[in-house]
């Protein structure tokens, strides 16, 4: 009953993680639209995290309920960002608007 996962599978996952890490750096280095960069990098990071959780942490081979438990924090954190969003918008407005009026001023 012991799951003896083949070690070649682990190496395959390692190569995926290596490739994604290199790709992340390639995407991060040039300067372009910040939202696009952030979206690409977050997508790749989530992909890497999913690979680690599914294969190294064996979630792929456990019962689905455990996967649901493991997935919960991600959902709550996304929710947290949305709950913070209204406050963040207000803070961003307060800090960016005066900053524009006093260009060059030292903080």
């Amino acid at each position, binding site marked *: *009953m*012991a799951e*003896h*996962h083949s*070690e070649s599978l*682990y*190496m395959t996952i*390692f190569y995926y*993680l*290596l490739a994604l*890490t290199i790709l*992340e*750096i390639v995407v*991060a*280095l040039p300067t372009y639209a910040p939202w696009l*960069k*952030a979206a690409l*990098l*977050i997508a*790749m*990071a989530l992909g*890497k*995290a999913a690979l*680690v*959780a599914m294969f*190294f*942490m*064996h979630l792929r081979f*456990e*019962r689905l*309920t*455990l996967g649901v*438990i*493991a997935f*919960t*924090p*991600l959902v*709550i*954190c996304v929710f*947290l*960002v949305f709950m*913070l969003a209204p*406050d*963040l918008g207000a*803070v*961003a407005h307060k*800090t*960016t608007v005066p*900053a524009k009026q006093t260009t060059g001023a030292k*903080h």
Partner: protein
Amino acid sequence: MSEAAAMHAGHAESYESPLTPESWGKLGMWVFLVGDAMSFGTLLAGYGGIRYGSADWPKPYDVLGIWLTAAMTLLLIVSSVWMVKGLAAIQRNDFAAFRKFIGLTILGGVVFLGCQAYEWNKLIFHEGLGFTGNPYGASLFGTTFFIITGFHGMHVTGGVIYLLCILLRGMSGAYSATNYSPVEIAGLYWHFVDLVWIMVFTFVYLI
């Protein structure tokens, strides 16, 4: 007596297999990791909020550099592979390979901590990045950086100690192909630390 034994067996069975095929210990570790993931998730969400609300947030790439941390990321991923190889070794009763791979995993963690100490030292004493202020812009840049990477570094330190205990117990013959659950549970923790670093690397260094 046989009835008692049967009752005992039935009793034991009713407590078996909660959510994982093998053990309560594994479920316990998962519940801990879910809570810990919320700690890191909250720190990163807070980081995102502070950064979004700041008008003079420095570009992390310019201040922190990327190559050392990219190497550290790779090191943690490699040490995760060593960890699964160590687990696979004990699952086939290969004690020499178990010692080798768990030892390498620990070494990976120690080298990671060494790199982090070097990085902090360089940032604090040579580039003036302080906990409450820095020459680059928003003062919270340093605060969030040290809290998040420090919290993760503490997890790596804990993982190194945890794995040392596993290695020492394993060397005294505590684990085998039929009793490897503690090794697998320690592995869960170690992979989680790797997983968190993947997120920290992305949010704090790359974006």
